[in-house]
């Protein structure tokens, strides 16, 4: 399965455990849950924007509303679009696991 990850651009299943090949000493993982109120939002489109606001990647949240990115240390913005509404969050990421919550609200 590792090969699938390294060659493809399709978003891996956001609910699965981190692949064994992922080295948290080296990777900067940004992960979290999209919520509307207290409820997780599955099927939300979450994009990772860099410090200049440019698109870097996008994933669809899992049944539990989870998302995950492999980025680099620095400042990032998360932008979620969903049928329940849209929302943003920012994170200053360091190497290792970075948890961030995103809340969406109807416009």
């Amino acid at each position, binding site marked *: 399965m590792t090969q699938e*990850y*390294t*060659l*493809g*651009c*399709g*978003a*891996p*299943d956001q609910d699965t455990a981190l*692949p064994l*090949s*992922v*080295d948290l000493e*080296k*990777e900067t993982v*940004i992960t979290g849950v999209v919520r509307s109120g207290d409820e997780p939002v599955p*099927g939300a*489109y979450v994009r*990772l924007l*860099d410090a*200049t606001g*440019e*698109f*870097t*990647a*996008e*994933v*669809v949240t899992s049944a539990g509303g989870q998302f*995950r*990115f*492999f*980025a*680099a240390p620095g400042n990032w913005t998360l*932008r979620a*679009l*969903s*049928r329940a509404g849209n929302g943003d969050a920012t994170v200053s990421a360091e190497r290792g696991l970075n948890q961030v919550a995103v809340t969406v609200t109807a416009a």
Partner: protein
Amino acid sequence: MSRDSVLVSADWAEKNLDTPGVVFVEVDEDTSAYDNGHIPGAVKLDWKKDLQDPVRRDFVNKEQFEALLSGRGIGNDDTVILYGGNNNWFAAYAYWYFKLYGHRDVKLLDGGRKKWELDARTLVKDPVSRPATSYTAGEQDRSIRAYRDEVVAAIGTQNLVDVRSPDEYAGRLLAPAHLPQEQAQRAGHIPTAISVPWSKAANEDGTFKSDDELRELYSAAGLDDGKDTIAYCRIGERSSHTWFALHELLGQARVKNYDGSWTEYGSLVGVPVALGDTPGEA
């Protein structure tokens, strides 16, 4: 080139789900997306299993492509409507691939799966089977496919457009950020390539920007209309999206997609590589 001849809206698609001669095709890397719900009547293509040779790094050949489309029930005269996840990256890749093998009438669903889902339009899990056809493909149209030697020769002479994210261009990331970053090849970009991330050609809901916005985007980025253009990304799917914008929407005649892209170029021995946010020297 008229936008209507290469792009359909979600509204059009919804009204034409049962139109004879119109075949919807979902293209994803991850076929579980299709299996968990697809546009009614759509068949699926797996960009890797169906469109890549299983052994060497290249596309399936003409005969394999013919067998694939025949088996999926796609005929030479059908209007093929492609859509998929990742803002239509792989659908655009399949569009370019269908054009490479000479399919006459192929269009993209604007906004792809994402807009369809966000609009809460119908997705079904029903298995789809279409009667087999006897599809005949053309020889590959090499005028839209770039190989590594012409890419190296294009440094400093043609338009090279790097459509990856700014951090991949600069060499700070090696892959889109939804993927692990450990890779064999070097980071950076092809010297003299301008950076125009594919995402600048799309709206937040995955639809393409207007022709005027696209013209302004590429001209402001320094694309020279008088020169041939080669677009690349990491594995050739995001650059298919930009190829579609330049060649199909804006009607630029001489635009190629370099499907080897960074995973090939960044592994070549002896070629120049530029680091940082500027194009660099030839």
